[in-house]
């Protein structure tokens, strides 16, 4: 059992990358507009994040240094600061969106407006980050996020035409009535969020929180190769069910409520309840991931003491950053800005941050001074370089495509 629970860090990290509130809605939107045509993007994203999360987990297990330490060490304080600002903004926007997402899930359960739930969600989030043990948080939210499996099972209960779905998944172009720029915009958005940088920050810092040593290398790998594909699979549940329910009638999904409707159609109230519970756990988990990551990145850039394994008084600056980030997120939400829209702006900053995060990981994973004989093998290096190129290409293309399509309009 203990071994089984050791993979919850990977699951929780992956949830933040694949099924946080922005992804739930944009994956479902993609399903409703393009069918399951973007399945390949999920596959490419899963492999990419596995490659780099494995490297950063290995570096952390052997050297006990989290990823942001490497960024400043290899790229210097100036470029490190550029990355810090970009990553912090991404993390903060996502944090705000996730708190909004928790509130939206509560709205679907209660019927009361999500704005009323925002302050309560933020307070509970802060209390959890202040008081609850890291492992407990990871287990509770990593495991309850798995309730989203209900959407995967729904695929079979909705009796789709599997030949049709297979056709969509193997056609690498937009269906009739949709255009290429939008197809690419959604593909880039899905890919960028699969490889969003706070995942490696959180995963490697989580490894330090759990006091990984070189002996935990296997634990780290199991986390990566089980957690991330599982997260991607949950995202596929949203993609496929929206493709089955909404694509044929031509409805474009744009709200959380629509995204979970297929679970209700398949399994009734229990299915709907499970899906909403899963969304609640996933968004709350992603809120914890981004809230902590905000603190981790700032503290690791400046060298401050950080982490939940210390008493808060020993890491006062870290806890202040976390607290201030939550307050900023709440302030942003209370302007009644749409929380789901917030995550789309993340793409702008990803363009800068993604290459500056993954390059130092790749370089350090080849450093014998750090890793001894555990440096990258040829396969990890080939994959690392290929993905670095894809990441740069996606990053460069993101902003023009975004302006051109008016954010996927």
């Amino acid at each position, binding site marked *: 059992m203990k071994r089984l629970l050791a993979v919850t860090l990977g699951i929780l990290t992956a949830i933040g990358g694949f099924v946080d509130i922005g992804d739930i809605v944009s994956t479902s939107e993609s399903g409703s507009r393009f069918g399951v045509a973007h399945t390949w993007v999920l596959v490419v994203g899963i492999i990419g994040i596995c490659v780099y999360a494995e490297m950063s987990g290995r570096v952390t297990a052997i050297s*006990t240094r989290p990823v942001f330490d490497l960024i400043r060490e290899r790229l210097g304080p100036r470029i*490190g600061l550029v990355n810090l600002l970009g990553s912090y903004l991404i993390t903060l926007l996502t944090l705000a969106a996730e708190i909004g997402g928790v509130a939206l899930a509560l709205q679907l359960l209660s019927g009361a407006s999500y704005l009323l739930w925002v302050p309560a969600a933020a307070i509970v989030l802060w209390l959890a980050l202040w008081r609850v043990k890291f492992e407990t948080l990871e287990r509770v939210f990593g495991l309850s996020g798995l309730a989203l499996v209900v959407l995967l099972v729904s695929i079979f209960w909705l009796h789709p035409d599997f030949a049709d779905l297979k056709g969509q998944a193997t056609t690498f172009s937009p269906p009739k009535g949709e255009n290429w720029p939008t197809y690419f915009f959604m593909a880039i958005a899905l890919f960028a969020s699969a490889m969003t940088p706070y995942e490696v920050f959180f995963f490697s810092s989580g490894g330090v929180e759990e006091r990984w040593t070189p002996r935990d290398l296997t634990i780290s790998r199991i986390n990566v190769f089980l957690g991330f594909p599982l997260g991607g699979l949950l995202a596929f549940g949203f993609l496929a069910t929206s493709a089955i329910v909404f694509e044929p009638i031509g409805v474009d999904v744009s709200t959380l409520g629509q995204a979970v409707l297929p679970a209700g159609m398949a399994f009734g109230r229990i299915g709907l309840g499970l899906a909403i519970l899963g969304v609640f756990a996933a968004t709350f988990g992603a809120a914890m991931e981004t809230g902590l990551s905000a603190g981790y990145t700032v503290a690791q850039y*400046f060298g401050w*003491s950080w982490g939940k*394994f210390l*008493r*808060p008084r020993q890491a*006062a600056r870290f806890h*202040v950053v976390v607290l201030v980030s939550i307050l900023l997120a709440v302030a942003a939400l209370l302007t009644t800005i749409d929380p789901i829209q917030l995550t789309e702006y993340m793409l702008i900053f990803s363009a800068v941050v993604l290459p500056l995060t993954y390059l130092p990981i790749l370089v350090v994973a080849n450093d014998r001074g750090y890793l001894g004989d555990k440096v990258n093998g040829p396969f990890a290096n080939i994959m690392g370089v290929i993905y670095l190129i894809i990441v740069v290409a996606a990053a460069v293309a993101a902003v023009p495509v975004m302006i051109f399509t008016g954010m996927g309009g």
Partner: protein
Amino acid sequence: MPLLIAFDLLDRQILDRDGIPVGKVDDVELSPDSRYVAALLTGQRALGARFGGVLGRWITGTAARLDTDRTGPRRIEYALVAKVDSAVHLSVRRELLTPPALEAWLDEHVIGRIPGASDAG
């Protein structure tokens, strides 16, 4: 093996004897004759001075306002360094070093006042 100041020291994490972060190596102080490494400098003051320009002055200025007791950045004598690998390990516990001003202030005025601040998470 030779020690490279920019590569092995600058921007590395300083850890105390128990592995708790103390700060980054934001700069390295040389002996008056510039022949030896004398001390590690850490904190935003040293960092800002390295940046230079408007941004650097702003970082140094803010850090200096928070910490009026000290004239320069925090210094850690090189004699306290036990080992340099992926981090710089000190041979002492961090309680023996002067605490960073911001950490001390936030501990006293914000974090220390919240219930549960002294319990490990």
